[in-house]
Protein backbone atom coordinates (compact mmCIF):
# COMPACT_ATOMS: atom_id res chain seq x y z
CA UNK A 1 0.00 0.00 0.00
CA UNK A 2 1.45 3.34 -0.96
CA UNK A 3 1.69 6.22 1.44
CA UNK A 4 -0.21 8.43 -0.98
CA UNK A 5 -3.32 6.30 -0.74
CA UNK A 6 -3.20 6.61 3.03
CA UNK A 7 -2.82 10.35 3.21
CA UNK A 8 -5.37 11.51 0.66
CA UNK A 9 -8.91 11.22 1.97
CA UNK A 10 -11.26 9.36 -0.32
CA UNK A 11 -14.08 11.35 -1.86
CA UNK A 12 -17.20 11.13 0.28
CA UNK A 13 -19.45 8.56 -1.35
CA UNK A 14 -22.62 10.45 -0.75
CA UNK A 15 -24.36 9.34 -3.87
CA UNK A 16 -28.08 8.89 -3.64
CA UNK A 17 -28.17 5.12 -4.17
CA UNK A 18 -25.74 4.56 -1.32
CA UNK A 19 -27.77 6.73 1.05
CA UNK A 20 -30.97 5.00 0.02
CA UNK A 21 -29.39 1.63 0.80
CA UNK A 22 -28.30 2.80 4.26
CA UNK A 23 -31.73 4.24 5.09
CA UNK A 24 -33.59 1.15 3.92
CA UNK A 25 -31.32 -1.32 5.71
CA UNK A 26 -31.34 0.70 8.90
CA UNK A 27 -35.14 0.77 8.81
CA UNK A 28 -35.51 -2.91 7.93
CA UNK A 29 -33.29 -4.06 10.78
CA UNK A 30 -34.81 -1.62 13.25
CA UNK A 31 -38.22 -3.09 12.44
CA UNK A 32 -37.12 -6.72 12.71
CA UNK A 33 -35.18 -5.99 15.87
CA UNK A 34 -38.34 -4.73 17.59
CA UNK A 35 -40.68 -7.27 16.02
CA UNK A 36 -38.52 -10.13 17.31
CA UNK A 37 -38.19 -8.58 20.77
CA UNK A 38 -41.25 -10.28 22.20
CA UNK A 39 -41.26 -8.13 25.32
CA UNK A 40 -41.85 -5.16 23.04
CA UNK A 41 -43.99 -6.46 20.21
CA UNK A 42 -46.34 -8.59 22.30
CA UNK A 43 -46.90 -5.77 24.77
CA UNK A 44 -47.44 -2.87 22.38
CA UNK A 45 -49.69 -4.88 20.05
CA UNK A 46 -51.30 -7.12 22.65
CA UNK A 47 -52.19 -4.49 25.22
CA UNK A 48 -54.49 -2.27 23.13
CA UNK A 49 -55.95 -5.32 21.39
CA UNK A 50 -56.76 -7.02 24.68
CA UNK A 51 -58.29 -3.84 26.09
CA UNK A 52 -60.33 -3.34 22.95
CA UNK A 53 -61.66 -6.88 23.19
CA UNK A 54 -62.66 -6.26 26.80
CA UNK A 55 -64.10 -2.75 26.50
CA UNK A 56 -64.85 -2.35 22.81
CA UNK A 57 -66.40 -5.60 21.67
CA UNK A 58 -68.79 -5.81 24.64
CA UNK A 59 -70.26 -2.52 23.44
CA UNK A 60 -71.03 -3.78 19.95
CA UNK A 61 -74.71 -2.91 20.32
CA UNK A 62 -74.34 0.12 22.58
CA UNK A 63 -75.41 3.46 21.15
CA UNK A 64 -75.01 6.87 22.84
CA UNK A 65 -77.14 9.25 20.85
CA UNK A 66 -75.65 9.09 17.37
CA UNK A 67 -72.38 7.65 18.68
CA UNK A 68 -71.69 3.92 18.18
CA UNK A 69 -69.73 3.15 21.33
CA UNK A 70 -67.64 0.32 19.85
CA UNK A 71 -66.58 2.64 17.03
CA UNK A 72 -65.77 5.50 19.41
CA UNK A 73 -63.67 3.16 21.51
CA UNK A 74 -61.91 1.94 18.34
CA UNK A 75 -60.74 5.52 17.76
CA UNK A 76 -59.52 5.78 21.34
CA UNK A 77 -57.60 2.52 21.37
CA UNK A 78 -56.14 3.22 17.94
CA UNK A 79 -54.56 6.34 19.47
CA UNK A 80 -53.58 4.45 22.63
CA UNK A 81 -51.84 1.76 20.56
CA UNK A 82 -49.95 3.99 18.18
CA UNK A 83 -48.76 6.30 20.97
CA UNK A 84 -47.49 3.28 22.94
CA UNK A 85 -45.55 1.95 19.95
CA UNK A 86 -43.86 5.32 19.40
CA UNK A 87 -43.05 6.00 23.06
CA UNK A 88 -41.76 2.53 23.92
CA UNK A 89 -40.11 1.74 20.59
CA UNK A 90 -38.11 4.94 20.52
CA UNK A 91 -38.03 5.99 24.17
CA UNK A 92 -36.90 2.68 25.62
CA UNK A 93 -35.03 1.51 22.51
CA UNK A 94 -32.91 4.60 22.03
CA UNK A 95 -32.26 5.07 25.74
CA UNK A 96 -30.91 1.54 26.08
CA UNK A 97 -28.81 1.78 22.91
CA UNK A 98 -27.38 5.03 24.17
CA UNK A 99 -26.51 3.59 27.58
CA UNK A 100 -25.08 0.35 26.20
CA UNK A 101 -22.58 2.24 24.04
CA UNK A 102 -24.13 0.91 20.84
CA UNK A 103 -25.14 4.38 19.67
CA UNK A 104 -21.57 5.60 20.21
CA UNK A 105 -20.16 2.84 18.02
CA UNK A 106 -22.65 3.78 15.31
CA UNK A 107 -21.66 7.42 15.65
CA UNK A 108 -18.02 6.45 15.11
CA UNK A 109 -19.07 4.83 11.82
CA UNK A 110 -19.98 6.85 8.72
CA UNK A 111 -23.68 6.14 9.30
CA UNK A 112 -25.64 9.37 8.67
CA UNK A 113 -27.25 10.26 12.03
CA UNK A 114 -30.52 11.04 10.24
CA UNK A 115 -30.71 7.43 9.01
CA UNK A 116 -30.83 6.26 12.60
CA UNK A 117 -33.65 8.65 13.55
CA UNK A 118 -35.49 8.00 10.30
CA UNK A 119 -35.43 4.24 10.90
CA UNK A 120 -36.80 4.65 14.42
CA UNK A 121 -39.56 6.98 13.23
CA UNK A 122 -40.65 4.79 10.31
CA UNK A 123 -40.62 1.74 12.55
CA UNK A 124 -42.91 3.55 14.98
CA UNK A 125 -45.23 4.33 12.07
CA UNK A 126 -45.13 0.69 10.94
CA UNK A 127 -46.05 -0.61 14.40
CA UNK A 128 -48.79 2.01 14.63
CA UNK A 129 -50.27 0.76 11.37
CA UNK A 130 -50.05 -2.88 12.47
CA UNK A 131 -51.81 -2.11 15.76
CA UNK A 132 -54.53 0.02 14.16
CA UNK A 133 -55.08 -2.55 11.43
CA UNK A 134 -55.56 -5.34 13.97
CA UNK A 135 -57.99 -3.16 15.94
CA UNK A 136 -59.94 -2.26 12.80
CA UNK A 137 -60.15 -5.92 11.79
CA UNK A 138 -61.49 -6.85 15.23
CA UNK A 139 -63.95 -3.95 15.25
CA UNK A 140 -65.33 -4.70 11.80
CA UNK A 141 -65.53 -8.48 12.12
CA UNK A 142 -66.59 -8.83 15.76
CA UNK A 143 -67.60 -5.38 16.99
CA UNK A 144 -70.33 -4.64 14.50
CA UNK A 145 -68.45 -1.48 13.46
CA UNK A 146 -68.94 -0.27 9.92
CA UNK A 147 -66.18 1.80 8.37
CA UNK A 148 -66.34 3.42 4.98
CA UNK A 149 -63.29 3.21 2.71
CA UNK A 150 -62.76 6.93 3.29
CA UNK A 151 -62.81 6.49 7.07
CA UNK A 152 -60.36 3.60 6.83
CA UNK A 153 -57.90 5.60 4.77
CA UNK A 154 -58.19 8.65 7.01
CA UNK A 155 -57.65 6.48 10.12
CA UNK A 156 -54.46 5.06 8.68
CA UNK A 157 -53.35 8.55 7.65
CA UNK A 158 -53.97 9.83 11.17
CA UNK A 159 -52.01 6.85 12.49
CA UNK A 160 -48.99 7.96 10.46
CA UNK A 161 -49.35 11.57 11.65
CA UNK A 162 -49.79 10.51 15.27
CA UNK A 163 -46.86 8.07 15.22
CA UNK A 164 -44.54 10.76 13.88
CA UNK A 165 -45.76 13.30 16.48
CA UNK A 166 -45.23 10.91 19.38
CA UNK A 167 -41.94 9.67 17.95
CA UNK A 168 -40.68 13.16 18.80
CA UNK A 169 -41.78 12.64 22.41
CA UNK A 170 -40.06 9.23 22.44
CA UNK A 171 -36.88 10.92 21.24
CA UNK A 172 -36.98 13.50 24.02
CA UNK A 173 -37.65 10.86 26.67
CA UNK A 174 -34.77 8.73 25.36
CA UNK A 175 -32.42 11.68 25.81
CA UNK A 176 -33.45 12.52 29.36
CA UNK A 177 -34.40 9.31 31.16
CA UNK A 178 -31.89 6.69 32.34
CA UNK A 179 -32.22 3.47 30.35
CA UNK A 180 -32.96 1.19 33.27
CA UNK A 181 -35.84 3.42 34.37
CA UNK A 182 -37.10 4.25 30.88
CA UNK A 183 -40.02 1.85 30.62
CA UNK A 184 -41.22 2.65 34.14
CA UNK A 185 -41.10 6.40 33.59
CA UNK A 186 -42.76 6.12 30.19
CA UNK A 187 -45.60 4.07 31.71
CA UNK A 188 -46.04 6.72 34.39
CA UNK A 189 -46.53 9.32 31.69
CA UNK A 190 -48.28 7.24 29.05
CA UNK A 191 -51.00 5.57 31.12
CA UNK A 192 -52.35 8.61 33.04
CA UNK A 193 -52.08 10.75 29.90
CA UNK A 194 -54.11 8.19 27.92
CA UNK A 195 -56.77 7.99 30.59
CA UNK A 196 -57.09 11.77 31.01
CA UNK A 197 -57.35 12.30 27.26
CA UNK A 198 -60.30 9.95 26.89
CA UNK A 199 -58.48 7.14 25.09
CA UNK A 200 -59.94 4.47 27.37
CA UNK A 201 -63.20 5.99 28.52
CA UNK A 202 -65.00 8.60 26.38
CA UNK A 203 -63.97 11.99 27.69
CA UNK A 204 -67.58 13.01 28.34
CA UNK A 205 -67.73 10.41 31.10
CA UNK A 206 -64.71 11.83 32.93
CA UNK A 207 -65.06 14.29 35.84
CA UNK A 208 -65.37 17.91 34.72
CA UNK A 209 -62.07 19.02 36.22
CA UNK A 210 -60.29 16.30 34.23
CA UNK A 211 -62.03 17.41 31.06
CA UNK A 212 -60.60 20.87 31.61
CA UNK A 213 -57.04 19.51 31.88
CA UNK A 214 -57.36 17.43 28.71
CA UNK A 215 -56.67 20.24 26.18
CA UNK A 216 -53.17 20.53 27.68
CA UNK A 217 -52.44 16.94 26.63
CA UNK A 218 -51.22 16.01 23.14
CA UNK A 219 -53.08 12.70 23.26
CA UNK A 220 -56.35 14.60 23.65
CA UNK A 221 -55.78 16.48 20.40
CA UNK A 222 -54.77 13.31 18.60
CA UNK A 223 -57.89 11.53 19.88
CA UNK A 224 -60.18 14.37 18.81
CA UNK A 225 -58.65 14.37 15.32
CA UNK A 226 -59.21 10.61 15.18
CA UNK A 227 -62.81 10.86 16.45
CA UNK A 228 -63.50 13.62 13.95
CA UNK A 229 -63.08 11.06 11.18
CA UNK A 230 -66.25 9.41 12.51
CA UNK A 231 -67.95 12.74 13.29
CA UNK A 232 -67.57 12.03 17.02
CA UNK A 233 -65.30 14.93 18.02
CA UNK A 234 -66.33 17.44 20.68
CA UNK A 235 -67.18 21.09 20.04
CA UNK A 236 -63.67 22.54 19.73
CA UNK A 237 -62.45 23.34 16.22
CA UNK A 238 -60.24 20.90 14.36
CA UNK A 239 -57.80 23.72 13.67
CA UNK A 240 -57.16 24.00 17.41
CA UNK A 241 -56.42 20.26 17.59
CA UNK A 242 -54.06 20.40 14.63
CA UNK A 243 -52.33 23.35 16.24
CA UNK A 244 -52.11 21.51 19.54
CA UNK A 245 -50.56 18.41 17.98
CA UNK A 246 -48.16 20.36 15.76
CA UNK A 247 -47.14 22.65 18.62
CA UNK A 248 -46.45 19.65 20.83
CA UNK A 249 -44.31 18.00 18.14
CA UNK A 250 -42.28 21.15 17.57
CA UNK A 251 -41.82 21.58 21.32
CA UNK A 252 -40.55 18.00 21.68
CA UNK A 253 -38.17 18.28 18.72
CA UNK A 254 -36.91 21.66 19.89
CA UNK A 255 -36.24 20.40 23.40
CA UNK A 256 -34.51 17.30 22.03
CA UNK A 257 -32.33 19.42 19.77
CA UNK A 258 -31.41 21.69 22.68
CA UNK A 259 -30.54 18.83 25.00
CA UNK A 260 -28.58 17.01 22.32
CA UNK A 261 -26.53 20.09 21.50
CA UNK A 262 -25.85 20.85 25.11
CA UNK A 263 -24.58 17.31 25.64
CA UNK A 264 -22.42 17.61 22.50
CA UNK A 265 -20.82 20.76 23.81
CA UNK A 266 -19.96 19.28 27.16
CA UNK A 267 -18.67 16.09 25.51
Amino acid at each position, binding site marked *: *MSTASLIH*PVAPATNFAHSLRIYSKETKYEFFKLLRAKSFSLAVIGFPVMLYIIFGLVNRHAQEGKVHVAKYILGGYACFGLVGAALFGIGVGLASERTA*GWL*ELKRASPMPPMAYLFAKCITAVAFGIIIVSVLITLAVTMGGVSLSAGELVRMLGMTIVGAIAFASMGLLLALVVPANAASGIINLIYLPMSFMSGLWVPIQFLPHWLQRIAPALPTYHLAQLMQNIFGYADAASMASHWTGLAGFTILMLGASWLIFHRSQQSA
Partner: protein
Amino acid sequence: MPLTAIAFETERPATSRPAVAQQQPIATLANVTKRYGATTALDGLSLALHPGEIVALLGPNGAGKSTAVRLLLGLISASTGAASVFGSDPRNPATRSRTGAMLQVARLPETLRVREHLDLFRSYYPHPLPVQEIVRIAQLDGIHNRFFSQLSGGQKQRVLFGLALCGDPDLIVLDEPTVGMDIEARRGLWQQIRSLANQGKTVLLTTHYLEEADALAHRIIVINEGRIVSEGTPSEIKSRGAGRKISCRTDLDIEYLRTLPSVTSVERNRDAVVVTAGNAEDVVREMLLQDAALSDLEIASPALEDAFLALTSTR
Protein backbone atom coordinates in the same frame (compact mmCIF):
# COMPACT_ATOMS: atom_id res chain seq x y z
CA MET B 1 -6.33 -2.89 -0.17
CA PRO B 2 -8.22 -6.13 0.44
CA LEU B 3 -7.31 -8.32 3.35
CA THR B 4 -6.51 -11.34 1.24
CA ALA B 5 -2.94 -11.77 2.37
CA ILE B 6 -3.90 -12.84 5.85
CA ALA B 7 -3.82 -16.55 5.10
CA PHE B 8 -0.07 -16.29 4.70
CA GLU B 9 0.43 -14.60 8.02
CA THR B 10 3.27 -16.01 10.02
CA GLU B 11 4.16 -15.36 13.60
CA ARG B 12 6.44 -12.40 13.67
CA PRO B 13 8.35 -11.07 16.66
CA ALA B 14 6.76 -7.88 17.87
CA THR B 15 10.06 -6.07 17.87
CA SER B 16 10.62 -6.39 14.11
CA ARG B 17 9.10 -3.02 13.65
CA PRO B 18 8.45 -1.84 10.10
CA ALA B 19 10.41 1.18 8.97
CA VAL B 20 7.54 3.53 9.56
CA ALA B 21 8.95 6.21 11.76
CA GLN B 22 10.06 8.29 8.80
CA GLN B 23 6.64 8.23 7.18
CA GLN B 24 3.95 10.82 7.64
CA PRO B 25 1.69 10.02 10.56
CA ILE B 26 -1.88 9.19 9.54
CA ALA B 27 -3.40 10.20 12.84
CA THR B 28 -2.26 12.68 15.46
CA LEU B 29 -3.30 14.25 18.69
CA ALA B 30 -1.50 17.58 18.97
CA ASN B 31 -1.10 18.97 22.46
CA VAL B 32 -4.63 17.95 23.37
CA THR B 33 -6.24 18.92 26.64
CA LYS B 34 -9.68 17.63 27.53
CA ARG B 35 -11.51 18.86 30.59
CA TYR B 36 -14.79 17.65 32.00
CA GLY B 37 -15.81 20.37 34.38
CA ALA B 38 -13.13 20.47 37.04
CA THR B 39 -11.44 17.21 36.06
CA THR B 40 -8.76 17.09 33.41
CA ALA B 41 -8.92 13.84 31.46
CA LEU B 42 -6.08 14.67 29.08
CA ASP B 43 -3.40 17.20 29.84
CA GLY B 44 -1.40 18.41 26.83
CA LEU B 45 -1.12 14.98 25.28
CA SER B 46 0.48 14.50 21.86
CA LEU B 47 0.77 11.30 19.91
CA ALA B 48 1.23 10.24 16.30
CA LEU B 49 0.30 6.97 14.58
CA HIS B 50 2.15 5.79 11.49
CA PRO B 51 1.04 3.42 8.74
CA GLY B 52 1.56 -0.23 9.56
CA GLU B 53 2.31 0.12 13.23
CA ILE B 54 0.55 -1.30 16.23
CA VAL B 55 0.51 1.12 19.12
CA ALA B 56 -0.70 0.16 22.57
CA LEU B 57 -2.07 2.78 24.90
CA LEU B 58 -1.38 1.57 28.38
CA GLY B 59 -2.40 3.08 31.67
CA PRO B 60 -4.41 2.52 34.82
CA ASN B 61 -8.15 3.11 34.96
CA GLY B 62 -9.00 6.77 34.50
CA ALA B 63 -5.65 7.56 32.89
CA GLY B 64 -7.32 9.02 29.81
CA LYS B 65 -7.01 6.08 27.39
CA SER B 66 -10.65 6.05 26.39
CA THR B 67 -10.71 9.84 26.12
CA ALA B 68 -7.80 9.71 23.67
CA VAL B 69 -9.57 7.01 21.66
CA ARG B 70 -12.81 8.93 21.54
CA LEU B 71 -11.02 12.08 20.39
CA LEU B 72 -9.41 10.18 17.52
CA LEU B 73 -12.82 8.81 16.57
CA GLY B 74 -14.38 12.26 16.61
CA LEU B 75 -16.86 11.28 19.32
CA ILE B 76 -15.80 14.15 21.55
CA SER B 77 -13.96 17.37 20.85
CA ALA B 78 -10.82 18.65 22.54
CA SER B 79 -10.90 21.56 24.99
CA THR B 80 -7.65 22.78 23.45
CA GLY B 81 -5.37 21.24 20.85
CA ALA B 82 -6.46 19.25 17.82
CA ALA B 83 -7.10 15.70 16.68
CA SER B 84 -6.39 14.90 13.06
CA VAL B 85 -6.95 11.68 11.12
CA PHE B 86 -5.94 11.25 7.46
CA GLY B 87 -5.16 14.95 7.43
CA SER B 88 -8.64 16.06 8.36
CA ASP B 89 -11.18 16.29 11.15
CA PRO B 90 -12.02 12.87 12.62
CA ARG B 91 -15.72 13.80 12.41
CA ASN B 92 -15.51 14.09 8.65
CA PRO B 93 -17.62 11.26 7.09
CA ALA B 94 -14.83 10.52 4.61
CA THR B 95 -12.44 10.05 7.53
CA ARG B 96 -14.90 7.81 9.31
CA SER B 97 -15.21 5.68 6.16
CA ARG B 98 -11.53 4.76 6.54
CA THR B 99 -11.57 4.17 10.27
CA GLY B 100 -12.82 1.10 12.08
CA ALA B 101 -13.63 1.13 15.77
CA MET B 102 -14.14 -1.47 18.42
CA LEU B 103 -15.46 0.16 21.58
CA GLN B 104 -16.56 -1.25 24.88
CA VAL B 105 -20.17 -1.91 24.04
CA ALA B 106 -22.22 -3.58 26.73
CA ARG B 107 -24.82 -4.91 24.35
CA LEU B 108 -25.66 -4.91 20.67
CA PRO B 109 -29.31 -5.28 19.67
CA GLU B 110 -29.85 -8.86 20.72
CA THR B 111 -32.62 -9.83 18.34
CA LEU B 112 -30.50 -9.37 15.25
CA ARG B 113 -28.34 -12.14 13.82
CA VAL B 114 -24.58 -11.76 13.45
CA ARG B 115 -24.88 -11.67 9.65
CA GLU B 116 -27.56 -8.98 9.89
CA HIS B 117 -25.33 -6.81 12.06
CA LEU B 118 -22.53 -7.21 9.51
CA ASP B 119 -24.89 -6.51 6.61
CA LEU B 120 -26.08 -3.28 8.21
CA PHE B 121 -22.61 -2.06 9.18
CA ARG B 122 -21.17 -2.88 5.75
CA SER B 123 -23.86 -0.74 4.14
CA TYR B 124 -22.42 2.37 5.86
CA TYR B 125 -19.14 2.15 3.95
CA PRO B 126 -18.41 3.00 0.33
CA HIS B 127 -16.00 0.07 -0.13
CA PRO B 128 -16.89 -2.59 2.42
CA LEU B 129 -14.88 -5.73 2.97
CA PRO B 130 -16.60 -8.88 1.61
CA VAL B 131 -18.64 -10.68 4.26
CA GLN B 132 -16.67 -13.91 3.93
CA GLU B 133 -13.45 -11.97 4.61
CA ILE B 134 -14.89 -10.45 7.78
CA VAL B 135 -16.16 -13.84 8.89
CA ARG B 136 -12.75 -15.38 8.33
CA ILE B 137 -10.66 -12.66 9.97
CA ALA B 138 -12.94 -12.20 12.99
CA GLN B 139 -13.50 -15.97 13.21
CA LEU B 140 -17.26 -15.78 13.02
CA ASP B 141 -17.64 -19.11 11.25
CA GLY B 142 -20.47 -21.11 12.73
CA ILE B 143 -21.98 -18.23 14.67
CA HIS B 144 -22.89 -16.28 11.56
CA ASN B 145 -26.59 -17.16 11.83
CA ARG B 146 -26.97 -16.80 15.57
CA PHE B 147 -28.77 -14.03 17.35
CA PHE B 148 -26.48 -11.75 19.29
CA SER B 149 -28.19 -12.81 22.53
CA GLN B 150 -27.05 -16.40 21.95
CA LEU B 151 -23.33 -15.60 21.91
CA SER B 152 -20.73 -16.06 24.62
CA GLY B 153 -18.68 -13.11 25.87
CA GLY B 154 -15.72 -13.92 23.64
CA GLN B 155 -17.95 -14.40 20.61
CA LYS B 156 -19.55 -11.02 21.21
CA GLN B 157 -16.09 -9.45 21.23
CA ARG B 158 -15.33 -11.15 17.93
CA VAL B 159 -18.52 -9.73 16.42
CA LEU B 160 -17.46 -6.26 17.56
CA PHE B 161 -14.05 -6.87 15.99
CA GLY B 162 -15.83 -7.91 12.80
CA LEU B 163 -17.85 -4.69 12.80
CA ALA B 164 -14.60 -2.71 13.09
CA LEU B 165 -13.39 -4.39 9.88
CA CYS B 166 -16.55 -3.82 7.83
CA GLY B 167 -15.27 -0.75 6.00
CA ASP B 168 -11.85 -2.26 5.17
CA PRO B 169 -10.34 0.54 7.29
CA ASP B 170 -6.80 1.91 7.16
CA LEU B 171 -6.94 2.90 10.83
CA ILE B 172 -8.34 0.46 13.36
CA VAL B 173 -8.98 1.62 16.91
CA LEU B 174 -9.55 -1.11 19.47
CA ASP B 175 -10.63 -0.23 22.98
CA GLU B 176 -9.90 -3.21 25.26
CA PRO B 177 -10.40 -5.70 22.42
CA THR B 178 -9.80 -8.98 24.22
CA VAL B 179 -11.85 -8.49 27.36
CA GLY B 180 -13.79 -11.66 28.08
CA MET B 181 -11.78 -13.81 25.66
CA ASP B 182 -10.00 -16.98 26.66
CA ILE B 183 -6.26 -17.27 26.00
CA GLU B 184 -6.68 -19.14 22.74
CA ALA B 185 -9.16 -16.66 21.30
CA ARG B 186 -6.98 -13.80 22.48
CA ARG B 187 -3.94 -15.19 20.68
CA GLY B 188 -6.06 -15.73 17.58
CA LEU B 189 -7.10 -12.10 17.63
CA TRP B 190 -3.50 -10.95 18.15
CA GLN B 191 -2.49 -12.86 15.06
CA GLN B 192 -5.21 -11.18 13.02
CA ILE B 193 -4.22 -7.76 14.34
CA ARG B 194 -0.58 -8.44 13.35
CA SER B 195 -1.55 -9.40 9.85
CA LEU B 196 -3.65 -6.26 9.49
CA ALA B 197 -0.58 -4.23 10.44
CA ASN B 198 1.52 -6.22 7.95
CA GLN B 199 -0.77 -4.94 5.23
CA GLY B 200 0.00 -1.36 6.17
CA LYS B 201 -3.01 -0.79 8.35
CA THR B 202 -2.50 1.14 11.56
CA VAL B 203 -3.79 -0.27 14.82
CA LEU B 204 -4.24 1.62 18.05
CA LEU B 205 -5.33 -0.44 21.00
CA THR B 206 -5.90 0.22 24.63
CA THR B 207 -5.47 -2.64 27.00
CA HIS B 208 -5.34 -3.65 30.61
CA TYR B 209 -3.34 -6.73 29.73
CA LEU B 210 0.34 -5.88 29.84
CA GLU B 211 1.08 -9.20 28.25
CA GLU B 212 -1.04 -8.10 25.32
CA ALA B 213 0.83 -4.84 24.83
CA ASP B 214 4.12 -6.70 25.17
CA ALA B 215 3.25 -9.38 22.64
CA LEU B 216 1.51 -7.20 20.10
CA ALA B 217 2.65 -3.61 20.05
CA HIS B 218 5.54 -2.11 18.11
CA ARG B 219 5.28 0.86 20.39
CA ILE B 220 3.78 1.35 23.81
CA ILE B 221 2.57 4.68 25.10
CA VAL B 222 2.15 4.66 28.85
CA ILE B 223 -0.20 7.34 30.07
CA ASN B 224 -1.23 8.35 33.53
CA GLU B 225 -3.40 11.22 34.69
CA GLY B 226 -3.83 12.42 31.14
CA ARG B 227 -0.12 12.70 30.37
CA ILE B 228 2.41 10.53 28.58
CA VAL B 229 4.67 8.95 31.16
CA SER B 230 6.78 6.91 28.82
CA GLU B 231 6.87 5.88 25.20
CA GLY B 232 8.91 3.30 23.33
CA THR B 233 9.20 -0.31 22.23
CA PRO B 234 8.16 -2.89 24.81
CA SER B 235 11.83 -3.60 25.65
CA GLU B 236 12.63 0.08 26.00
CA ILE B 237 9.72 0.54 28.34
CA LYS B 238 10.82 -2.39 30.44
CA SER B 239 14.38 -1.17 30.86
CA ARG B 240 13.22 2.36 31.54
CA GLY B 241 10.77 1.48 34.22
CA ALA B 242 12.59 -0.48 36.85
CA GLY B 243 15.93 -1.44 35.39
CA ARG B 244 17.16 -5.03 35.13
CA LYS B 245 17.78 -7.41 37.98
CA ILE B 246 21.31 -8.80 38.47
CA SER B 247 21.43 -11.86 40.67
CA CYS B 248 24.69 -13.52 41.77
CA ARG B 249 26.75 -14.91 44.63
CA THR B 250 29.37 -12.44 45.65
CA ASP B 251 31.41 -11.38 48.64
CA LEU B 252 31.09 -7.70 47.76
CA ASP B 253 29.71 -5.46 50.42
CA ILE B 254 26.06 -4.47 49.97
CA GLU B 255 26.77 -0.88 50.95
CA TYR B 256 29.47 -0.72 48.28
CA LEU B 257 27.08 -2.11 45.64
CA ARG B 258 24.57 0.59 46.45
CA THR B 259 27.12 3.24 45.48
CA LEU B 260 27.58 1.92 41.92
CA PRO B 261 26.06 4.15 39.21
CA SER B 262 22.41 3.52 38.19
CA VAL B 263 21.80 1.01 41.00
CA THR B 264 18.35 1.54 42.48
CA SER B 265 18.22 -1.25 45.04
CA VAL B 266 20.26 -4.09 46.51
CA GLU B 267 18.70 -6.98 48.37
CA ARG B 268 19.98 -10.20 49.83
CA ASN B 269 17.98 -13.20 48.76
CA ARG B 270 19.25 -16.24 50.76
CA ASP B 271 22.80 -16.84 49.39
CA ALA B 272 22.39 -14.49 46.43
CA VAL B 273 22.49 -10.75 46.09
CA VAL B 274 19.95 -9.09 43.83
CA VAL B 275 20.98 -5.73 42.37
CA THR B 276 18.48 -3.68 40.41
CA ALA B 277 20.17 -1.30 37.99
CA GLY B 278 19.21 0.84 35.03
CA ASN B 279 22.52 0.24 33.33
CA ALA B 280 23.10 -3.42 34.12
CA GLU B 281 26.11 -3.95 31.79
CA ASP B 282 28.28 -1.36 33.53
CA VAL B 283 27.35 -2.58 36.97
CA VAL B 284 28.14 -6.20 36.09
CA ARG B 285 31.45 -5.24 34.54
CA GLU B 286 32.43 -3.43 37.72
CA MET B 287 31.28 -6.27 39.95
CA LEU B 288 33.27 -8.85 37.94
CA LEU B 289 36.37 -6.69 38.20
CA GLN B 290 36.00 -6.32 41.93
CA ASP B 291 35.11 -9.93 42.72
CA ALA B 292 36.87 -12.64 40.70
CA ALA B 293 34.97 -15.31 42.63
CA LEU B 294 31.55 -13.99 41.63
CA SER B 295 29.30 -16.91 40.56
CA ASP B 296 25.75 -17.90 39.54
CA LEU B 297 25.29 -14.70 37.57
CA GLU B 298 21.84 -14.06 36.11
CA ILE B 299 20.49 -10.92 34.52
CA ALA B 300 16.73 -10.67 34.13
CA SER B 301 14.59 -8.13 32.36
CA PRO B 302 11.76 -6.98 34.53
CA ALA B 303 8.27 -7.96 33.53
CA LEU B 304 6.44 -5.20 31.74
CA GLU B 305 4.15 -5.18 34.72
CA ASP B 306 6.96 -4.08 37.04
CA ALA B 307 7.97 -1.33 34.63
CA PHE B 308 4.42 -0.25 34.27
CA LEU B 309 3.84 -0.07 38.00
CA ALA B 310 7.08 1.82 38.48
CA LEU B 311 6.19 4.31 35.75
CA THR B 312 2.67 5.02 36.86
CA SER B 313 3.14 5.05 40.61
CA THR B 314 5.88 7.67 40.72
CA ARG B 315 3.41 10.48 40.22
